[in-house]
Structures are given as structure tokens and as C-alpha cells.
């Protein structure tokens, strides 16, 4: 009896996979046509093949239709498709991020606030949502709530993430502005950086250099990297890391010179720390997934890539590598589905076709 149950269950799974596979093939053709039409900005033509082959259970199709309707200026329809995609993949940040476009275009601020909150339920440290939500509160003069959102960003990016937020943060906290000397030195260094004169940009910070000043070390790390002085860049970024060990900003920074030197093991250490501080960080998770994949540790790679694909189910880099990780860990049926999804995203993709050929 138990055996029969297993056989029946196996058959159902097999049939379901095959049926999904056939559906994927059909959709792949529709996607291909839609990309060709989008390229020439003919959004109605891009929408048509997808609506002809519409399957309301396809996350990918709803996501794409959400985008195309937004591009065609049809925000209501766009919202509907995005919302269906959100329902199909409730843990996806990608569909919710897409939904922001038509909601914002339709000026539905209350709805927008709700979308950001939903994203933060999945990833409480998601930078863009904290940033936008912070400014929604700020504009409503709800400074305490704004401060709460901004604080999450500042903890991860102590330099202030970007100049506008840096000023807002100083204003909200009533902290003293840096001295004129510091502001002038930084301004000068930005000018030189713009002119690609990185050595002068570094020199302009010489007089204000303080080994305990996070911002100047972070900036020198960046400028040294731009000048090709990777060893020196690492030194400054490391000082910044030591000064703010719970931030991810200098860790992403140090990964630039480390990549230039090819020291990938050290990059993986930094990425692990980033994931520790910001568990849903898709860049760091992807970096670790790719690192372990390259090391043939497919099980570890799978764990990190799964996180990325859960957040962004229809984004190329995560999806293709996740498909390969599935294949390498023996999950052939799943790999087949994923490779087909890649073909929807990138018709004729060589890597996906190679993967499918191996499975056959």
C-alpha cells in the first residue's frame, strides 16, 4: 500500500513538473516576442503575446506585465499584475519593488507607504524602503518615525549613505556640522575626483586626516582604490571597519580593492560579516553563493543563492547561478524549471541551454 502511495505521489509530481515545463516553453516564446517589441518601445505589442498566453499562476508573466503596463502608462493594470505577482510570491521583494512604480506614478502615497512597510516586513534593513519611508514620515513631520527609519541606514552606512540623507540626519539629531576646514577639504577632494585626479583628491584630505575619523578613512579608501593603490585602499578601509565594525559600508568598500587584487577569500569573509549584520543583503548573499559555487561547495552556494532568489525570483544573476546550484546538488527537476525561467528572462541564454542539455 505504502509502495502504491509512493508511486502515485511520484507520478503526480512528475506530471506536475512536465506540465509546468510545457507551460514554461510556451511562455518562453511569448517573452521573447515581448522583449523584441519593448526594445522598439512598442509596449502594446510587447504586452500582447503575454496576455495571449496569460497564465494567472505565472509569477514571471505577472511581473513582466506589471512592468510593461507601467511603461505603457497604464498604472491601474500595472498595479493589478504586480499585486498578483506579490500574492504568488509573498516573500519576493522584487514584485513589491515593481509595484512601487505604478503606485508612485498614480500618486497613491498611502498605498506607497504600505508597500514599503511590506518590503520591510521581509527585509527590515532594506535600504531603499527605509530611505523612502523615512522621507514620507519626514515630510509628514513625523520626525521620530523618520529618525527610526534613517537610523537603520546610518548604522549600516555611517557616512550618511548619500549627501541629502547625511544633512537630514544631522538636522534631525541636531549634531554639529563638520568644521569649514573639513567641508572644504572634502569639497576639494570631490572636485579632483570628478577630474580623475585621484592623487590630488587624496592630498586635499591630508590636512584633515585623523585615524579616528571614519569618514576621511572611508573616503581615502575609495580614492586610493580609484588611483589603483589597492594595498593602501585596503589599509584605509580596514581602519574604517575597525572604527565602525557594525557597518556594512566599509566592508562593501574594501571588496573593491580586494577584487582588484584577486583576494576572493578575504572578500567572502567580508560578505559573511555583511550577511551577519544584514541577513537579507542580496549582494553579499549572491557574492557568497558565487564564491562557494566557484569552490565546488554547491550545498553552501545553494543556501545563499536560495535567499537571493526568494527575494528576487526573476533576476538573471541570482536565477542562473541558483539553477546551476540546483543542478549540482542533484535537484535536476528544479534545475530544469529554473533554466527554463532563465530562458524567459534571457531568450537563447547559452548557460541555461547548456544546463538543459546536461539534464536531457
Amino acid at each position, binding site marked *: 500500500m505504502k509502495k502504491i502511495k509512493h508511486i502515485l505521489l511520484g507520478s503526480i509530481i512528475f506530471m506536475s513538473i512536465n506540465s509546468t515545463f510545457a507551460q514554461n516553453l510556451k511562455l518562453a516564446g511569448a517573452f521573447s516576442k515581448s522583449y523584441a517589441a519593448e526594445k522598439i518601445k512598442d509596449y502594446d505589442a510587447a504586452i500582447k503575446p503575454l496576455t495571449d498566453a496569460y497564465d494567472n499562476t505565472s509569477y514571471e508573466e505577472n511581473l513582466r506585465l506589471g512592468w510593461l503596463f507601467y511603461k505603457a502608462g497604464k498604472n491601474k493594470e500595472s498595479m493589478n499584475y504586480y499585486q498578483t505577482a506579490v500574492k504568488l510570491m509573498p516573500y519576493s521583494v522584487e514584485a513589491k519593488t515593481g509595484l512601487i512604480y505604478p503606485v508612485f506614478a498614480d500618486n497613491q502615497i498611502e498605498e506607497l507607504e504600505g508597500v514599503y512597510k511590506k518590503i520591510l516586513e521581509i527585509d527590515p534593513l532594506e535600504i531603499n524602503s527605509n530611505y523612502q519611508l523615512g522621507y514620507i514620515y519626514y515630510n509628514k513631520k513625523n520626525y521620530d518615525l523618520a529618525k527610526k527609519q534613517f537610523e537603520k541606514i546610518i548604522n549600516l552606512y555611517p557616512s550618511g549613505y548619500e549627501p541629502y540623507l547625511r544633512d537630514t540626519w544631522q538636522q534631525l539629531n541636531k549634531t554639529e556640522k563638520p568644521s569649514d576646514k573639513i567641508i572644504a577639504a572634502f569639497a576639494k577632494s570631490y572636485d579632483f575626483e570628478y577630474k*580623475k585626479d585621484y592623487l590630488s583628491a587624496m592630498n586635499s584630505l591630508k590636512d584633515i586626516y585623523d585615524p579616528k575619523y571614519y569618514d576621511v578613512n572611508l573616503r581615502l579608501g575609495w580614492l586610493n582604490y580609484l588611483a589603483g593603490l589597492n594595498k593602501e585602499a585596503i589599509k584605509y578601509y580596514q581602519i574604517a571597519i575597525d572604527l565602525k565594525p557594525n557597518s556594512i559600508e566599509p566592508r562593501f568598500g574594501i571588496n573593491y580593492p580586494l577584487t582588484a*587584487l584577486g*583576494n576572493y577569500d578575504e572578500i567572502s569573509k567580508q560578505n559573511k560579516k555583511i550577511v551577519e549584520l544584514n541577513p537579507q543583503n542580496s549582494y553579499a548573499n549572491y557574492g557568497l553563493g558565487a564564491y562557494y559555487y566557484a569552490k565546488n561547495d554547491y550545498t553552501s552556494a545553494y543556501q545563499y543563492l536560495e535567499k537571493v532568489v526568494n527575494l528576487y525570483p526573476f533576476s538573471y544573476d541570482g536565477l542562473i547561478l541558483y539553477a546551476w546550484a540546483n543542478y549540482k546538488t542533484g535537484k535536476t527537476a528544479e534545475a530544469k524549471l529554473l533554466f527554463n525561467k532563465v530562458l524567459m528572462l534571457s531568450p537563447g541564454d547559452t548557460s541555461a541551454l*547548456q544546463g538543459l542539455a546536461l539534464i536531457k
Partner: protein
Amino acid sequence: MDFGRKYRGIIIVLFFFTIGEIKAQDTLNTAFVEKQSYKLYLDKNWNELIKFGNKAIKNDFDYYYLRFRLGTAYFEQKKYLLASTQFQRALKFYSGDNLSKEYLYYCYIYTGRYDDARVLSKSFDNNLAQKTGTDKQSSLSFIQLEGGIKQSDKANYPHLNSHNDDTHKNDLINDTSIYKNVTYFQLGLGHYIKNRISLFHAFTYFSQENTHSKNETFTNDIQNTPLFGNDTIKFKSTDKTTQFQYYLNANIPLKNNWNISPAFHFIHKNVSSQVDTSSAIKHPAIAEESISSNSKTSTSKENYYIGSISIQKNVNRFSFAFGSAMLYGILKETNLQPQPPRMGGPPPRPITVTTTLPSVTLFQSNLTVEYSILGNSRIVIGCTGYINYTSKSTVLAPYIIAHPTYKITLMASYLTNSGDNVLEANAYLINNSTDNTVSRYAFTCGFQISRHIDLYAQYVYENKIESKQSFKYNYNGFFAGIRIKNFNKFTNPKNN
């Protein structure tokens, strides 16, 4: 598909920002080191790259790409030992790099570090494993059969009185020893356990027959002893030695070019002796010769247990090995001892008496320093020094190994010994003869006749000293062997 390589491209794209043209500088900085080393690498200017790369490393510029380029430069110049160090360092920065792994793998192969190559191959992905042929590695490494003979240069060693005391100063002693040929066979087997530990088993059979004859004529010149005149004693002993040995050696490559190699050697030696003695005694009083003869057989069984360990470290062109070995031997002698006559009965049978002789112990240490002149295995010189703590003596054994071509191996070695014999080559070579080797010259030639078969031959010239009478004699040894290897799809470009 080699997705690993693709990934490298992806992360480089993700993180690597194109940097602008940077002017070459006299003083080293990262940008200049990177630019210059990359240029030399692209130009395949290996000599300059080696000079520049080493200078940069000395100045504390150390990163993946520099090490990789430097490794490639050494590899292209066939300096595989030096290249291996660079690729190992490159892998410390980027442990998943298949290209460095592949280079390092061949560095190990070309320098004879097969065990290290095996361990490294465990980290290969499918593509690289298929490419290098390590995906289907047999756990059997090789089978070897060797044999040989040792001939003494002179069969006889007659000499006169060795008694120096006053009592026997006029005695005539004609002492003759005959050393017959030594025959020797060995069956060896090498295999791997999980590609991590290599084991070598060797079963050895050794046999030799020695005869020792002695005629002694005593002149009785001691005053106040009128009873005896000239006495003659004839003595002949024949010893037949057979020896069985089992040797087991494990080689375990560790991280950072360390290698540990424990070994065990068991020897069972069986010596059967036949001693025939006859004496003719002149009795002056009755002018009559009294003749008596006696025959005695005995067997001695000796079991030796040897434990040894060697720890090796490779540093660029150098290789250092420190080892210690301990031997413990249990010797048992069985004699047929005659019994006193009994009145009225048949002559009593001799009884077997087994005597356990004092055990033998030996404790020694050794240090080997090896240097590769060309940074590969083309010409390697080395020397092993032994300290025998038991006999407080030393042994020095310099050697040179050359590979004029990849298929030919030549080796010459010399050994000089100030005392008792030592256990050589991590207790693989045991000289448990009671006669010490004073010096030894050995010449070995190996030839790879096919991918699967190696032939080798060795000539050994030994200067020995006899243990009891301290006379010198020599051995000429001729050995030959065949090794059958490569039971897998192992790919070695130099074999093809």
C-alpha cells in the same frame, strides 16, 4: 560548463571599476606593481616578471594576481618547485581558483610529489578532474618487483694469529671465511586511502650462506707443563641466514608543504648454524695422538621491530626532513646440548635448549637537506646525516639526483659511517648484519619505458668490516627492478 570561471568574470564585473591610466613610477606602489606585472605577463617576459614580482613581494606587495603571474613565469621556465610556492600562495588568496590548482597540480607531478598532487586533486571540480584525468583515479598506485645479488670481492680471508697475548704468540692460526652470494627479492605495492594517505608495502626475502673455517695449531711453550706438546684444532662453521621482512610506510601530505611519514618494519631472521670441531692432541709422554671430533647444530631466531617517522618540509628550492627511528630486536638461540652418559643405558639424546639473548636496541635521528639547483627536479643535491645514539656514532650520506630527460633518472650516492650501521630511508633500508658498512657508493639508473612501466638498476659497492676479527672486505651489489604504475586515466602531458 565551467561556471566557476564565469563567476569570476561576474564578480569582477560587479566589483571592478575600470581605473584610468596611471603613470609608471620609480617607487613601487600597488598600481604600478599591478600594471607592470600584468604587462610583463602579457608580454610573456618571464625573466623580468620573476625579477619584478619578487622585488614587489619583498616590498610587501602580495596578492592573488601577482602570485599567479609569478607562478606562471616560473612554470614557463620549468622551475616547478618555485612555481608551486607561488601557486600555493595564490590559492591562499583565492582558494577556489581552478587555474592555480591546475598549475599547482602539474608542479607537483613534475617534481615527483605525487601524494601532494593526489590530495590537491580532491578539490578539483568535474571539469578540471576530467581535464587532468583525476576523475577516475585508481587507489592502486604501483606494483614493483626487484631483486639482486651481492657478491663479496674475495671469498676467502685467511690470516694469521690474531691472538696477541703472550700465551699464544707462537700459535699458528689459519682462519678462512667464505661469504657466499646474497640473494634478495622484494615485492612492493603502493596504494592510496581516500586519495589522502599513500601506503607502501614491501615484502622482502633475503638469503645468504657463510662458512667459517679455522685451523689452529697451539705451541705449548709454557714452562712446567710437560704434559702437552703441539695441539691442532680444526673448526668449521656454516651459517645459513634467511630473512623475511615486511615494511609499511604511510605518507600523509599536510598543509603548508609539510609531510609526515610514519613507517614500520618487521624483520624475522633465521640463522641455522652447523659447527664441526675436530682436535688432534699430541701427548709427549706416550707419543700418541688423541683425536676427538664434535658436531653441533644451533638455530638462532631474531625478530626486529622498527618504528620510524619522518617529517618533511619543502621551502622553495629546499627540502628538509627530520626523522627518528628506533629498533628493538629479540634474539633467541636454540642449541642441541649433549647430555652426560648414563651407565648401562643407550646414549642420551641431546636436549634442545633455548636461550634468550640480550635484546638489541637502536635509537637514531637523521636530518636531510635537499636543494634543487634549477628550481625543479632536473638536478637535486642533498645530504642526510644520521646520529646513532646507541653507538654514539655518525653517518653522512650525500647524494645527487639528475633527470637529464623526463624519462631518465640518474642517482649517485655515497655513505660514510663511523660506527654501527644505521636505519636508512625512513627505516626502509635495514642493515642488520653484525658487520658494519664503513662506506658505500651507489649508482642508480631509472628509465621510463612506457606510461605504465619503469625499469631501474642499481650498482652498489660496499666496504665492510667483519665484526669479530675486524678484517675488511667488500661487496659488489647488482639490483634491478620493474615498476608497473598508472592504473588510472591519469593524464600527464609529458607522457604523451
